[in-house]
Every structure is written in structure tokens, then in C-alpha cells.
């Protein structure tokens, strides 16, 4: 095999393995697969295999360091308030509408039910809207 191709593939494998770390982002994920599918979670080590049709909706929430009442450092899931609407048509993405708050903004919203209601009330731009 061509040495340049081997070098490129080696770099790719190294780069892929470099991704095996604690998640640093809050990620919303939707997926649909038809066929054979194998995935390994680089955070938990969980392996998922599917044959045929598979549909998943996941949210990847990283942990943040917090301090409890005793002054001890703990790991806690990141705060988030979100509303999402994802429309799928014929296996393709048709429309995505999302509204969310994260971190301190989410904690502040959680104290005010009215504010949460505003965040969770999704609005979709109309077809007649100018680009």
C-alpha cells in the first residue's frame, strides 16, 4: 500500500483515539440508521450495535465540578433547560427548531416558571419570512 496513504490512515486512527475523552460540550443528537451500525461511547465505554432500522434521540450532558455544603468537590450534570422539535420526512431532516438555556442562565430560569414557559414555547419562522 502507498506509504502516504498509510501515513494518512495512521494519523486518522491517532486522531480518532484522541477523541476518547470526557465530553466537553452539551450536545443534542438525533440519528436514524438502516443497515449495520456499531458505536462505542468514548466516555462510558458502552458499545451499541444495531442491524436493520434504528432511531435514537440523545442528549450528551457533561459534568461540571461543584462544591457541596460540606465544601467537598462533586461532579454534577450541567444545568440545561431546552425544548426541541425535529421533523423527519422520508429519512431526511425536514426541520429543526430548538430553544434552550444552559449553565447559570438555566438555573436562573428554573426559579421563574414564566421565564421557563417563554423558553419552552418554540416558534418557527414562517414560509413568507424574507431571507
Amino acid at each position, binding site marked *: 500500500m502507498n506509504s502516504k496513504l498509510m501515513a494518512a490512515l495512521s494519523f486518522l486512527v491517532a486522531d480518532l483515539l484522541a477523541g476518547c475523552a470526557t465530553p466537553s*460540550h452539551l*450536545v*443534542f*443528537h438525533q440519528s436514524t440508521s438502516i443497515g*449495520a451500525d*456499531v458505536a462505542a461511547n468514548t466516555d462510558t465505554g458502552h458499545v451499541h450495535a444495531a442491524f436493520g432500522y434504528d432511531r435514537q434521540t440523545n442528549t450528551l450532558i457533561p459534568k461540571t465540578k461543584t462544591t457541596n455544603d460540606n465544601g467537598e468537590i462533586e461532579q454534577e450534570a450541567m444545568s440545561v433547560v431546552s425544548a426541541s422539535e425535529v421533523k423527519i420526512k422520508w429519512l431526511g431532516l425536514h426541520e*429543526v427548531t*430548538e*430553544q434552550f438555556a444552559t449553565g447559570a442562565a438555566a438555573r436562573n430560569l428554573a426559579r421563574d416558571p414564566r421565564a421557563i414557559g417563554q423558553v419552552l414555547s418554540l416558534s418557527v419562522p414562517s414560509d413568507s419570512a424574507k*431571507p
Partner: protein
Amino acid sequence: MTKDAEVSDVYGVGALLRMRGVDGGFTLGWRHATYIYPRVSSDGAAEGTRWTIGWVPRHTADPFFLAIRSVGAEVAKYPAELRAHVGFRMDAFTFAACIGESRVVKFSYRPSSPRQTRLSMFPTPHSIHP
């Protein structure tokens, strides 16, 4: 490009090698990826559409949103997972915030009307990724 987002559709067929980015990997077959970046309003770029063939302009930041459709065989690194599949696959990722980041976001996107993509963030982003 809209007033607050930059939408990039990348079509590929054949053997596709992505050495970096949030979807680095190798695909053999057909692939369509949509990358949406928050736009900093003061960048002065004009709204409009630009086409390129054979190469993709590299963006300085990672995307806020990523949608992928592929048919064929693929090995790729996605957020927090390594994945291999044969057949059809569709993924949509929203990279909402960095760990611990305080942010309020409103986002809407239709593949059939990319010019109507809306992405408002508070605080406004320079890059959602560190």
C-alpha cells in the same frame, strides 16, 4: 449565509477522508453534510450563496449544528463516540454549549430553506468551542 448564521452544505461521493473536525473519519459512498456556524454580525461579510466544486473552504470555528446523511460504509468520530456503519445513516448534532457555559439560544433550520436559518445567542458567540 443569513444575517445570523452561515450554512454550508457539503456533498461528496466516492472515497472521502476527513482528517479533522467534529466529524472526522472515512466514508466510502455518498455523503451530504450540513454545517451551520454562528455568524458574528460585525464580520462584514455579505449575505448570499457561494458554490465551490472539488474543495470546501475551511471554517475557523467548529459548527454549532451538524446534519449528515450518508449511504455506504463509514468509520467516523462523532462527539463522545466512535462509529462504524454500513448502509444509510442520518445524524443531527447541536453543539449547544461548552461545559459550564451560560447561554440562551434560539435556533431554527429547514434544509429546504437554508436562507431562513435563524440562530440567536446570548451572549453572542465568537466561538462556541474553546
